[in-house]
C-alpha cells in the first residue's frame, strides 16, 4: 500500500483523536497522575547517584589502609609463656640414663646408711 499522502492523512487523524482523548481525561485521573508525579519528585531527595558514592571509594581505601597500619604498629609484642608439659618431657625421664640415675639413687641411699652405721660403731 504505497500511498504516502493517505498515510499522512491517516496518521494526522489518529493524532487528533488521541490528543482529543488526552484533553478529556477526567479530574480523578489527573489527580492521580499529579500524586504519582509528586511521589516521583520525592525520590529526588532520597536518590543518590552511584557516582556520588563511588567518589568516596579512594578515600575509604586510604582510611582502611591507615587503620590496618596503626593496628599493626601498635600490636603488643609476643610474650613468652610457660609451655605446657608435653609427652616429650616424660620421654626424657624414661630414657636409659634416667633409669641409671634411679639405680644410683638406691646405691647412694645404701651408701649413706652404711656410713651412718659405721660411725655408730666407731662412736
Amino acid at each position, binding site marked *: *500500500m504505497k500511498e504516502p499522502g*493517505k*498515510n499522512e492523512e*491517516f*496518521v494526522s*487523524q*489518529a*493524532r487528533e*483523536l*488521541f490528543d*482529543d*482523548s*488526552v484533553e*478529556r*481525561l*477526567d*479530574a480523578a*485521573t*489527573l489527580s*492521580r*497522575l499529579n500524586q*504519582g*508525579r509528586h*511521589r*516521583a*519528585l520525592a*525520590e*529526588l531527595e532520597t*536518590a543518590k*547517584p552511584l*557516582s*556520588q558514592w563511588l567518589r568516596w571509594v579512594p578515600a575509604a581505601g586510604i582510611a582502611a589502609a591507615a587503620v590496618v597500619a596503626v593496628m599493626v604498629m601498635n600490636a603488643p609484642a609476643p610474650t613468652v609463656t610457660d609451655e605446657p608439659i608435653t609427652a616429650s618431657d616424660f620421654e626424657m625421664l624414661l630414657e636409659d640414663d634416667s633409669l641409671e640415675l634411679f639405680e644410683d639413687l638406691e646405691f647412694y641411699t645404701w651408701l649413706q646408711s652404711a656410713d651412718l652405721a659405721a660411725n655408730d660403731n666407731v662412736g
Partner: protein
Amino acid sequence: MNAVSSVFAVSWPREDLTGAKALQRERQLNQFLAEVERRALRMAEIAVRDRDEALDLVQDAMIKLARNYAARPQQEWTPLFYRILQNGIRDWHRHQKVRNRVMVWFGRGGSGDDEYDVVANAPDPAGRAPVDEVQTHETMQHLEVAIHDLPGRQREAFMLRTFEGLDVAGTAAAMRCSEGSVKTHYSRAVHTLREQLGEHW
C-alpha cells in the same frame, strides 16, 4: 515534540545535583513529567487496556526516571522515560500471559474479568454535543482496539512516533533498536491499521 536530536546518545556526562542546581533540576523534571504524563497514560492505557494498571505503570516510570536518571541531560529524559514505560508495559504483558496460563490450568479461563469495559473507561464528555461525542468516541475506540492488537514493537513504534511525536532517532533510543527497525515497525503498523480501520475511518 522532537525532543531528541539525531545525535542522541547515552554517553553524556552526568551532572551533580547540589543546592540551587538541585532545585532547578526538580522544577525541570516536574515540568517534564507534567508535559508527558497524560499522553503517557493514554498510551499505556491503549497498550494494557486498563486505566488503573496504566496509572501504575506511568507512576513507576516516573519514579524510576527520577531515581535513576534525573541527573542526565534534559534532552535524554523523553526517550529514557518512554524506554522505562515500554519496558514496564512489556513486563506487564508477560505477567498477564503467565497469569492467564495459570488461570486456564485451574479452569477459570482468561476472559470475563479481564474484558475491557468501554463504558467504564470512557473519557469524561466535558459538555460536548452528544452526537459528535459518540462518533469521536467510537472512532477512537476502534483505533485503540486496532493499536492494541498490533504486535508489541509495531505498537510501540506507532505510538511513540504518532502520539508522542518522537523522531526516528528518539524512537530508536526509546525502543533500544536501530532506526531502520523503527521505520519498518512504523510502516507496517500504519499499513495494518489502515487496513483494519478502513470501514470505520
